[in-house]
Structure formats: C-alpha cells, structure tokens
C-alpha cells in the first residue's frame, strides 16, 4: 500500500476511479464538484484514458451510455441539478443493464438551491429518480478514505451485476481535504471479461442486444423480472453499514455520509452526559441494511435519525424499525449542516 497523501475530496474520487480502471470520463462542470471534472481533464490523457467535457449533463449521460456498451469502465460526476438532468439516461442505463459509475456531490435543493452540502437527494438516489422499476447500488461515504474505497467497489459491483452504481457524496466531502491512502493501479488485463454482452462485433456469433426496450409487454415483463432477480442478489450480498458503540446503546442515532461522521461526535458527547447512545451508519443506501437496523430495535428505546434534509432516509429507518420503537427525526436543509451541539440538544429534549 502506498503512503497517505493529502487530497481534496473530488480529486480523491477521480484518482480512485482511474486506479480502479476507469478510462473514460464524461462530465459537465457544476459546483461543488467541478474540480473532479477538471482533475479528469488533467489525468485522463496521462493514463491513456479519455476525457470529454460534454455540452450538458444530458449529453454526458448518453456518452456514458454509449461508452459503457463497449464494455469499458466509465464514470461521470455531477451535482444535484445536473444529476436530475441525467435521470433519463440513468433509467435507460439501468434498463440496458450497463455498469456505469455515477457520482452525485449533493448540494442544497430543490431547483437551483445553493452550493452548500446537503442530503436532500436521497429519495432520488435510492427510490428511482428516473422512470421504471429499477435500482442503483448507492454508496454514502463518510470520509475521503471511504470514498476512495467505495469508488473502487462501485466499479466492481457495477461490473459484477451489470448495474449502474452511484456514489452519493455531499459538498462537504467534495470540498474537504484529508490524508488518503490510494490502492495500487488496477491492472487493466484483470478487469472482468464483458465479451458475453458488450458491443464488440458480431462476426461468427449471435449479435448481443443492449436495450431497455421491448414492444411486447410479456417480454418486457420477463426483462423486468430478470432485473428483480439481480436486485435480490444485490440485496443479499452487498449491504454495508457501520455500527459505532451500539453494543450497549439504548438510543440509536441513524445517519449516513457526512452526517454519519458528525454523529460519531454526537454519540460521544451524549455518552459524556451519561446517555447510552450509539450510531448506525448505513454505507449502502440501496440496498438499505434493513435487517441489521431492525435487530437493534429489540435493545434500543429510541431511534433518532439525523439528516441534512427535511427527512428522507428516516422513511427507511421506519420501515426497518417497523413500529417496534419510536423513530424521531432532526434535520437541517438548504445546505445547512447541523452542529453536534444542536443535534445533542434535540436528543436531550427527546429523552
């Protein structure tokens, strides 16, 4: 393993992608992630990769769609309004079962919103966003090191299931600097073999079909059922979460990403006051670790979800807890990051 280097969040994700074997990047500038686009413009030609600044996010997502169908590792990065624009393509890519990695560095919304960190795109990320019965594997890193590791993982998982994956970061993660240890460069010859489905010429064999379309509703239903089979496997195999001081906890704070990281401080502050708090931090936001969270419902008195939104993930917490215990919520929105003190004050009010 290499030594730790200080990097900015957006650049950490870019370098991680390149080391994971991503050699095509298409993007459109948008704050707070333009540095990632800029990083790729600098790095891609150095590693025999391709960079192109698209004329819009709509163009970028369709460039990805095309490039991914050739079986290469491809990525884009954007921020909320840009990711909204990409949704048509995201839905098609999911339907065509193509491995593409998306990065959404979320900012305050809706609409133009602002450029401050937010988590208000959770619904869009995990419950659809585009049209149709589809799913993306969604990762919510809390630190740059984790973002680097999850970026590599996102490419592997996307390839393994032929399914798009999304890194759901936020402006805080994108803009901060932290020491990071990068993995070695992936030897491109060890990347998964996509010759069974990719567009690589059809001489001497049946043509491959990469599509999200069938005019016959029964055939389309079969395609959808196949997607669902795949999603079931992803649910079985790919859930990730972290538990922090939950062993003896009777208050479970649930938070992800930047908020999850801040929540660790809150747990410790609460414990100093004699409150046995613990943190459940989902790392995959889809598949959501419902069962692991449900297990805590027997021991805990109260679940307390904290988000940089007006309450989106809290719906999944409620699904997991399933009425067994009270689920409370605290959130700030519009790009305001809750401070540990204000969250703690709210927690003390609740107990």
């Amino acid at each position, binding site marked *: 393993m290499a030594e730790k280097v200080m990097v900015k969040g957006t650049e950490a994700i870019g370098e991680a992608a390149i080391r994971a074997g991503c050699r095509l990047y298409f993007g459109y500038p948008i704050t707070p992630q333009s540095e990632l686009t800029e990083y790729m413009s*600098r790095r891609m030609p150095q590693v025999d990769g391709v960079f192109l600044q698209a004329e819009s996010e709509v163009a970028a997502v369709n460039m990805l769609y095309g490039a991914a169908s050739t079986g290469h590792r491809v990525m884009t990065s954007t921020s909320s309004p840009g990711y909204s624009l990409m949704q048509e393509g995201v839905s098609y890519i999911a339907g065509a079962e193509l491995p593409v990695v998306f990065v959404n560095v979320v900012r305050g919304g809706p609409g133009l919103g602002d450029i401050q960190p937010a988590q208000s795109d959770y619904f869009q990320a995990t419950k659809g966003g585009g049209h149709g019965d589809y799913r993306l594997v969604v990762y919510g890193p809390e630190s740059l090191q984790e973002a680097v590791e999850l970026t590599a993982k996102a490419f592997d998982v996307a390839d393994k299931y032929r399914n798009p994956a999304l890194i759901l970061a936020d402006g805080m993660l994108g803009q901060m600097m932290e020491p990071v240890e990068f993995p070695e460069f992936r030897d491109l010859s060890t990347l998964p073999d996509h010759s069974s489905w990719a567009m690589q010429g059809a001489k001497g064999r049946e043509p491959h079909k990469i599509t999200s379309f069938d005019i016959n509703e029964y055939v389309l239903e079969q395609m959808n059922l196949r997607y669902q089979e795949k999603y079931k496997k992803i649910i079985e195999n790919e859930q990730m979460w972290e538990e922090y001081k939950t062993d003896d906890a009777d208050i479970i704070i649930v938070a992800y990403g930047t908020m999850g990281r801040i929540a660790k401080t809150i747990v410790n502050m609460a414990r100093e006051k004699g409150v046995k708090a613990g943190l459940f931090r989902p790392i995959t936001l889809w598949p959501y670790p419902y069962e692991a969270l449900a297990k805590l419902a027997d021991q805990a008195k109260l679940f307390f979800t904290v988000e940089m939104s007006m309450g989106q993930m809290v719906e999944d917490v409620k699904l997991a807890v399933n009425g067994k215990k009270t689920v409370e919520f605290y959130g700030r929105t519009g790009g305001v990051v809750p401070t540990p003190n204000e969250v703690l004050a709210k927690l003390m009010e609740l107990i």
Partner: protein
Amino acid sequence: MPNQKYFQYVRKDRLPNVWCPGCGNGIIMKSFIEAAGNLGLDKNKVAVVSGIGCSSRVTGYLDFNTLHTLHGRAIPFATGVKLARPDLEVVVMGGDGDMLAIGGNHFIHACRRNMDLTVILFNNTIYGMTGGQYSPTTPHEAIASTAPYGNLENNFDPVKMAISSGATYVARSTVYHYTQSVKYIEEAIKHKGMSVVEIVSNCHTYFGRYNGMSKPAQFMEYFKKSTVTLSKAKTMSEEELKGKIIIGEFHNDESRKTYLELYEELSEQLGGVAK
C-alpha cells in the same frame, strides 16, 4: 445625481454587484440600460430572462420584470413568457456556456421559429461562474481549467449560427465598442422577430489568467486591436481575418413573419382569439 432616465432601470439596493472588478458584464448591463433609456422603455412592459452563470446574474440588478431561471433554459422560459404575454418586450441575457452549450439546442430552435425575443449573448469565451472550464466559444488551443493542455475543440461562431438557424436580426460588438453595443441592442429591441446581439466580453479572472491576459485593460487593448468592422472585413482575405473579431450588423430581415404573427393569423382564420 445619476440620470433618472437610465437609473430608473437599476435596483440600487442590490448594488454593488457580485462581478469581479473590471468584468465585462457590467459594461454590457450598462449598454442595455442605455438602450432602454434611449427607447424610453416602460419597465412594466419588459421581461428580462436569464439562465445561470456570472452574466445571468444581471437580472438581479435590472429593475424590470426579471426572471432568473435554469442553466441553459432561459430561451424556452422566455418563449413561454412571450407566448403568454405577447405584449411584453422579452429580452434574454446570458453566457456562452448557458446559451450555446447546455442551451444550444434551444438557441437554434428559437432562431428557427423566429420567436420575437431579443437575445443578448455575453460571450466571454469561458464558463466564468464555475471556474474557467472551456465553453463552445473558447478558441481552439486556448487554456481552460478543463483544457489544461489546450482546447482540442473548435469554437462556434454565434453570429453564423444564429443567421443559419433563422434569426432575423443578428449583430456583434465587444465590450470595448460601447456605442455600437448600445445601438445594436436598440435595433434588436425594436426588431420584430428573433434578434441576437453577441457582445464579446472579458473574463480576465479565468480566461485571462489562463491565457496571459489577467488584467481587464489587456482585453480592452486586445478588443481594440483585433476588431474589424463588417464593411472592412468584406475587403479582407480569410488569411487577414484570422484571429480578428468582426463587429457590425450581419443580418436584418423584417420580411419574415414571427411565430406569433403566424399563430395569430391561424387563430383568426379559425375564429379563435390569440391572446
């Protein structure tokens, strides 16, 4: 005491503006204000629509009906306003990225329809707001934050694009050529049909810094030196025109009906009411 003829069009409480000192956006805004004053525009009868970008912030400072909309979508937004309120003078302002990259498709279609809009393109040949990425008007080989080794792509000529797409008034000026800018904007506003005024501007903060012109004055020098008028350009060879900015009124055709006129005719034929 500022001249009320012009000052009435400014939201004084919103000043100072957010632009870098010396940015061309202020000059273009003033050109528009002067044109509006000269024409004696009634502020309630004007809607100014912008997208997103440094230049698009102009709608915050102008005291008309102003609409600060989505990145790239000012033209369709303005089309909606114009069709809902044909009595308004609808002006669209924004940047080269906004109007020619993400909004490029809308730009050519509004020209094709001869929609009765006045488009003022703030062409600083870069994405200012997001930090100096290349735009569809960044010259080939110029440096940008996403073209660190020089821009591989070629740039659009917005004037040619507008004319070939069907705009019926098309002119170009620079921020150095203030008097011409005012005149072209006045003509564009008076013009019936789609009018496009491109004003070549400076983003010394990004484009300039990357390309050896970090001071606004260097741009002024450059615009002064590199500009030729359309009539002069007609006497020059391709070779001589290389790297030159041609300014002037390129196209002015009032013979073509606007979309609204055609629609009103249709409505009348069918016995409907257009408004």
